[in-house]
């Protein structure tokens, strides 16, 4: 999980660099990408909270 989200963070730098040029329209794919990435994370944290096993 760490490796996946670490790589995602790198991808976001490419988006951030051109944010002004991309504007609001360029945000939709990134937002979709982040939602898709964060839903499994939320589920994983939910399971971890249930087990009290961190």
């Amino acid at each position: 999980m760490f490796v996946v989200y670490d790589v995602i963070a790198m991808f976001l730098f490419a988006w951030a660099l051109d944010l002004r040029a991309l504007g609001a329209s360029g945000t939709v794919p990134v937002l979709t990408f982040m939602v898709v990435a964060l839903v499994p994370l939320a589920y994983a944290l939910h399971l971890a909270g249930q087990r009290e096993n961190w």
Partner: protein
Amino acid sequence: MPDPVTQLIQLVTSTYFLEIVVFPGLISIAILGAFFTWFERKLTARVQLRIGPLYSSPVGGILQGFADIIKLLFKELIIPEGADRFFFIMSPVTALIIGAALLGLIPFAPGVQIANVDVGLPAFLAIVTLSPTLVLLAGWSANSKFPFIGGLRALFQQTAYEIPLWLSALGVVMITGTLNLTGIVQFQQNNGWLILPQALGAVLFIVTSTAEMERLPFDLPEAESEIMMGWQAEYPGPLFMLVQGPAFIKLYAFAALFSTLYLGGYLGPAIIPPIVWFFLKTIVIIVAVMLFRSTFPRVRLDQLLRQGWTTLLTLSIVNIVIAYLIVIGVPSI
């Protein structure tokens, strides 16, 4: 073609060579390292109502750091039985080189920067990412229980802080539109310091970078009261000095990066030279991180992992949203 002696003289008097060897390179790092070792001990002592170093010079033991260096250099070099000698020695040496490389990316003043690269910010963070691997290698190569536990702790700790560290710096990139550290400073010259619009990012950055530096309250890989200095436990005198070196250099480099990202780097009223501004800001950050050590108790590993993956990550995403709203503005519905 000039003769070899002339070539050598040209090399040692070139600006590039002086920057690497004298300032902001190796000699200045060594002197500052010895000074800040003393300063941290004195500051911590003052917070804890003690006196601290006193006898190594007429002025409050200010030469204590240099005395420690001399003492450690003359100790016997003992390699533990069964240790992997190559990795045991090379890990701290490589950590020292990596630490020095970090400072090469920092703009200390206009024109005073060893390497002005276009991707300075991610390069800095990527180089830093190597540190926990070296800690694990050092802990494993010692062939001893506590160092290995310390190395494993360093890797676990990395999974908690690294993503929030990168994401906290992302807000600065979104606002400035550059990865170049000099470019980030120049942006602040025209638009003001980023500490105001990126206050949350700055707090996240200093918390996660403290975890990266393995300083209290996040010094789990060392944790002298739990695992006897962890991965550093088996290092003898001269190598122990090499182990301590990168710890200070990372503190110095992260404080310098914080000043660059959020406090305008070398910018300030012209009455004081830019380089003095830079050091004033950097020293303030160093003192703040040193005060963490005297103020907060050490967190547990499970607490760090939990907070890293929940609180810090969530706040990092909030910080990205704040940066987005600053750049694009609130979308009309």
